[in-house]
């Protein structure tokens, strides 16, 4: 075989795919299917619906007092649940639909594709936060008109920053579980267990066992995110946040990343 001369290909004239172009393509892939499009639209709609219901209750019930921040907190039942699902779908749909074969043939430097997806996830989280802030402003303004209660505009930089960080962390956690499992239903189920079942178990363990109560803040990421909501993070809280975040966010993200990079794409 060595006697055969194989002509070489001149690749010097070709520029590598710019990273921003990959980000734009990945962003397009997030909304160019019905599933993706409606997931994004329903996230925004759900955010609005929950706030409107909350406002209706506030207006009709005399003993309920609402503020700008209470409207923002209602996103616990909308974007806080769906953003991680968006983060999951960004990655796992490439596997369930087998498009990873095409994506990774067109850009065989896989970390660039994955990071482009991550950037899209972060951008979507920021957009969701902007929508939520706008909706909360509108709802609080309407509430002050419709109800007799005093209007409270208790927005602060710390609150807003904490809110943004919470949503970004939610998105990243979904993305991390997705990278770890590479399977949509499995990643969603695990995420739901992590965010709805696990806190209860941690709480139970903390009630029953003294020693567990002591280590819980260090390992319970949901618990550590609590003070972010009220913008009451202390130095110790940040230590809890960093430690538990390392366990639940950084570790799955790193393992998931290395898995995607080495995985045989079928």
């Amino acid at each position, binding site marked *: *075989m060595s006697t*055969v001369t*194989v*002509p*070489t*290909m*001149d*690749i010097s004239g*070709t*520029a*590598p*795919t*710019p990273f921003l*172009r*990959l980000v*734009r*393509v990945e962003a*397009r*892939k997030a909304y*160019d*299917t*019905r*599933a993706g499009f409606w997931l994004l639209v329903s996230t925004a709609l759900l955010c609005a619906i929950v706030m409107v219901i909350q406002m209706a209750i506030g207006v009709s019930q005399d003993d309920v007092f609402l503020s700008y921040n209470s409207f923002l907190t209602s996103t616990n039942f909308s974007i806080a649940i769906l953003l991680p699902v968006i983060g999951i779908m960004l990655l796992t*749909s490439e596997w369930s*639909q*087998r*498009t990873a*074969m*095409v*994506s*990774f*043939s*067109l*850009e*065989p*430097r896989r970390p660039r594709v994955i990071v482009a997806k991550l950037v899209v996830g972060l951008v979507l989280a920021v957009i969701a936060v902007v929508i939520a802030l706008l909706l909360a402003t509108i709802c609080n303004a309407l509430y002050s008109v419709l109800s007799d209660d005093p209007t409270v505009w208790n927005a602060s930089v710390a609150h807003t920053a904490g809110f943004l960080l919470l949503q970004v962390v939610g998105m990243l956690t979904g993305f991390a579980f997705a990278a770890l499992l590479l399977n949509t239903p499995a990643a969603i189920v695990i995420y739901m267990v992590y965010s709805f079942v696990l806190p209860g178990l941690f709480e139970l363990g903390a009630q029953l066992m003294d020693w567990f109560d002591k280590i819980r803040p260090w390992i319970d990421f949901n618990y550590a995110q609590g003070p972010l909501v009220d913008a009451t993070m202390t130095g110790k809280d940040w230590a809890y946040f960093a430690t538990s975040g390392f366990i639940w966010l950084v570790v799955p993200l790193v393992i998931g990343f290395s898995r995607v990079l*080495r995985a*045989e*794409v079928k």
Partner: protein
Amino acid sequence: MIEVVGLTRKYGSFTAVDDVSFVCQPGRVTGFLGPNGAGKTTTMRVMVGLTPATAGRVTIGGHVYQDIPNPGRHVGVLLDASAQHAGRTGREILEIGARTMGLPDSRIDEMIELVSLTPQEAKRRLRNYSLGMKQRLGIAHALLGDPSVLILDEPANGLDPAGIRWMRGLLRGYAERGGTVLLSSHLLHEVEQIADEMILIGNGRIVAQGDKKTLLAGAAKGIATTFVTALDNPALAAALSAKGITVASAGDGLRVEAEAVEVGRTALEATVVLTDLRSADGGLEDLFLELTADTQRETVV
């Protein structure tokens, strides 16, 4: 242009590709032929970096695939026409490819036209495509970046006879303009009509390679067989037998263990009128089945 050297891929104790080496030259269509599960797809997947090799290497134009910048502009790949999002339209799939490679939108329309998909079909979602339409779309996707190398896994699968002829013409023209084509198939006639060069693989090992002539010459160790029908079959049979040639009756005519030219000469000498004379052209197919006999699921009789 494509050079595979000592390529091996193992899955645990199973060896899918076993020390495979071959070269695909520009301006030629190379057919990669083998029964199901012979290792064709795995070899092609290693070429584009989707599957890591256990040993050996593949270079395309002297480069490892991962080192080629914007590889879609140099290497067109179609490994599985169904591996696209079922909810995207054909056009959208091409658009994503074109955007990734940084191509103008006009290129998308050109490719849709080239593979004879109508604009209406291009607007349909992939889940409503037949396999043949998916193949056309996949070929359009592979050609988007105007690559100089094409790697196609079973591209004729699902195409109707007219589609297969169309693809043959397309790839022929592509190779004549200097392109390198590697296409796989498990169907011999698909490959033998289009390929200049054939690589026969079975059980992960290359069992034969070369052009059709070389392959047949290598296989011609057996005795040539000819089918002949004459107005007077018994007379012809007698004349052939007199020369010591083995004759047996087969259908309306005779099966003769000799070259067609020898049978014709005998007929002339015996003044017997022939109505049909042809060599048993199963040569390549026999060779293919024989070479891959160990790996066939059905035993060849």
